């Protein structure tokens, strides 16, 4: 706790947190500490990420995205979640057990300042990769491979968003540079 407070003071002195935030933080940290879960209040330890919960995908017509991702990559339209303006497309483990979903939604105006970062593409892992089958399936569905190499391919979705799909051999963080 001492180190935590010292770090917080340092942030305060440097202007990283204002007085109000400083006070709130100390109070909250004290409450957490009293509850016996001090580890969660330690700065720098961070959270344990289990996975991507969802990707929020905003486009001119969510139905086109829905149809593409369900037919090409086998995502499942979550029952009861298709509102006519958005839907949840599930994949991976079951919901609540580590599964992910893509929220396909019609774009709406936002008052948020524009971010200076962008997610320029996503990559999906396909299990039981078979090069001929993967390429053949894409061709049969009328989708042109837009780039990549064996085991790691790209396709543009209906809104020209870059989607990569790959196997574990070609796309594994721990094999980078090998």
């Amino acid at each position, binding site marked *: 706790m001492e180190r935590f407070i010292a770090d917080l003071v340092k942030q305060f002195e440097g202007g990283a947190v204002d007085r109000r935030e400083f006070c709130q933080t100390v109070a909250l940290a004290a409450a957490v500490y009293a509850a016996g879960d001090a580890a969660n209040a330690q700065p720098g330890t961070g959270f344990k990420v289990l*996975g991507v919960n969802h990707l929020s995908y905003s486009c001119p017509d969510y139905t086109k995205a829905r149809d593409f991702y369900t037919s090409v990559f*086998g995502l499942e339209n979550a029952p009861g979640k298709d509102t006519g303006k958005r839907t949840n497309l599930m994949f991976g483990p079951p919901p609540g057990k580590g599964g992910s979903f893509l929220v396909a939604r019609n774009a709406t105006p936002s008052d948020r300042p524009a971010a200076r970062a962008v997610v320029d593409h996503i*990559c*999906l892992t*396909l299990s039981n990769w078979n090069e001929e089958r993967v390429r053949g399936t894409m061709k049969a569905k009328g989708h042109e491979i837009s780039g990549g190499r064996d085991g790691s391919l790209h396709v543009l979705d209906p*809104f020209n968003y870059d989607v990569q799909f790959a196997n574990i051999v070609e796309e594994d963080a721990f094999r980078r540079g090998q």
Partner: protein
Amino acid sequence: MEGFVAQKLNEFATGKISRRRLIETLTLAATSAYAAGSASAQSESPLKAQLINHVSYTCPNFKEAADWYSKVFNLEQVGPTARDVALPFGKKGEQPYGVSAKDVPLTHLIIRTPNPNAPPPRGGERPRPAPQAVIDHIGYTIADFNRDRAKAALTAMGVKNLREAGRYSLHMDDPFGYDVQISGLEANALSDG
């Protein structure tokens, strides 16, 4: 299959891939060749996404962003280059949460900075069309998520623009104003929206 094996062998012989990579590639190809048949027979969609492999995130300063994601999500940085670095959601050898298939790697972020000196597209190359879609935010599933505890911890880390989003979720801004959401397993495709 034979053609594929020959191609990989050739790559090994010419030094394009290592011995270890050759073995891994061929092992996977050999084991998936049979599994693929049974998998496609059982599934309506011949291809089925198992998990997010990676998210490619581009920003003005990849080191600053990577340090932020490392701090907030306790992520290791691996394979750094002059322009990017990967942040896997776990340690080497770990299995992705909830996944039983052995050929699905840990999800990771690839955080990049554009290369200002990149050569222009070569003659004849088609310029990539501008996307009309955007991933406007990403939600991450956190172990043992508790909104109030999370809020305290994030505030202590100096995370900006924290916003509550119901009982089971928080939004925040990363260093480049990108919208990041965290929640627990309770927030899922069947409960959200």
